[in-house]
């Protein structure tokens, strides 16, 4: 099983930064694009992505696959996803371990599942269907969650590990989500990292979150927290080198600030790699 080659250090592509990216061609190794933003017929979004793609590798990251829903898979969505991938040739396609609605409703959120054998069997089957349809392995991301279901029969990390093994898919490890969920569900995020198979993880997400005291929320509107940087170092030690990127979805700072954060990710990775090589 050959993992995709690491892409280096990237950013989430957001329209607010298009102009600056076009003008300055920043030192970003790759961009992650939200697939749904480009499932349109034409106009500026697709024109912008054409320009970006000419200069950078991309990964397509979706929010609508609803892989854990008990509603039927949306074949129109999968067809649109495949068309987009055929046109823009991403390194790979990812989405979240979540559901977004049932009975025809879209709740526009990454909703949690109980970690049961039934849910595992269900999601494994759905990933197989999607991978068959797309003709490629996909990467599945662990989400931040806020409720623990009484029905859960296993830990989240056991569920994620078994899912990747049985569905033969990649994992997109969101380091911030591991941290946020660890806080919200009273688990040790290091245990999560230690339990995931090294050969499954193809990408890291880094992002900021909001601390509400009693719980943390995955808001992507803050710089990456110190705790998450520390966890990233731990993740790099175990899984690196892995394609790494920062997500920012609100309270957009000057682009230079994101580049500085990305530089910090590079430096942490370099330091951890150097220590690893010396050991």
């Amino acid at each position, binding site marked *: 099983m050959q993992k995709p080659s690491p892409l280096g250090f990237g950013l989430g592509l957001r329209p607010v930064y298009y102009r600056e990216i076009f003008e300055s061609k920043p030192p970003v190794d790759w961009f992650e694009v939200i697939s749904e933003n480009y499932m349109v017929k034409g106009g500026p979004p697709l024109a912008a992505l054409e320009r970006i793609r000419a200069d950078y590798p991309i990964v397509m990251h979706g929010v609508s696959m609803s892989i854990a829903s008990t509603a039927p898979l949306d074949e129109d969505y999968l067809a649109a996803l495949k068309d987009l991938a055929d046109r823009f040739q991403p390194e790979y396609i990812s989405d979240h371990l979540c559901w977004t609605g049932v009975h025809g409703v879209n709740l526009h*959120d990454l909703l949690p599942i109980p970690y049961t054998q039934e849910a595992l069997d269900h999601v494994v089957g759905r990933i197989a269907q999607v991978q068959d349809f797309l003709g490629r392995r996909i990467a599945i991301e662990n989400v931040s969650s806020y409720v623990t279901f009484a*029905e859960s029969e296993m830990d989240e990390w056991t569920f994620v590990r078994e899912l990747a093994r049985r569905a033969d898919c990649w994992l997109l490890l969101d380091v911030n989500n591991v941290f946020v969920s660890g806080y919200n569900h009273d688990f040790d995020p290091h245990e999560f990292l230690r339990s995931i198979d090294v050969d499954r993880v193809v990408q890291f997400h880094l992002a900021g979150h909001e601390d509400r005291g009693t719980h943390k929320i995955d808001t992507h509107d803050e710089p990456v927290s110190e705790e998450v940087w520390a966890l990233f170092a731990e993740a790099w030690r175990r899984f690196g080198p892995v394609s790494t990127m920062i997500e920012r979805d609100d309270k957009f700072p000057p682009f230079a600030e994101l580049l500085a954060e990305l530089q910090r990710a590079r430096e942490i990775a370099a330091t951890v790699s150097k220590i690893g090589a010396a050991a």
Partner: protein
Amino acid sequence: MSLAALQAKFQAALLGLDADQNILADVKASRQLEPAARFGVYASAYRLRLAGFLAEDFKVLNNALGNDGFHALVEAYIDATPSRHRNARWYARGLPDFMQATSPWNESRSLIDIARLERAMADAFDAADASACPVAALAALAPEDWPQVRFAFHASAMVLTLAKGIGPAFEAAAAETACPEPDETQDEFLLVWRNGEVQVVYRELTSAEAMALSEALAGKNFGEICALLQFHDEADADTIAARAGSYLARWFADGLVIEIRNPNTAL
């Protein structure tokens, strides 16, 4: 309980369809938070997210209504309309129709029309790409072909019938400046389209040009368009043909026409 039953229960509570929030019995407390507060993270995020979609696509309507008025509209729309779309914009585009169908918003044609114009501009933004046809292509038409010829238009092009003065009211609301009230008893015709790859624009049409363009967009041929203009204006045939020709020249200049369809050459 099956996964399907759990998801149905979760969704019903999120949509406010289960007043008892039965889902809470399936949620464990964390060290710091009770089940209701934990589930509440999702419940509040759901409404905030949909409200965010609407605010993003109806900034001008928001200005026209004021924040409190827009908030009341958005809350009513969210209550009445769960999203059935994966694309946020498809959810938001139902707002003008909701206003049209729902009191008290259906009492203001002006506000509904501002929303309709804003929706049309959003629709034009990512309509399918197509290159404009050069006006010089008309020179290839033989005089006898003209009555049968049809035109294909850029997918972004649409003609709106709105209250008189909506254009200026829209601009004023966008700039948050004062503006005379639109005259809801009179009509104004606006053409909305995307100019080239990036810019969505609109311009006012006379009632005759609006009729001609609506017919052309519907696939009527040049002869049929001239006949309708004649019915509209009761002018002589040469005057009507000249007027239709001037409209056509303008549509080409606007980049609206993407193809000339001449059935005589197609055969």
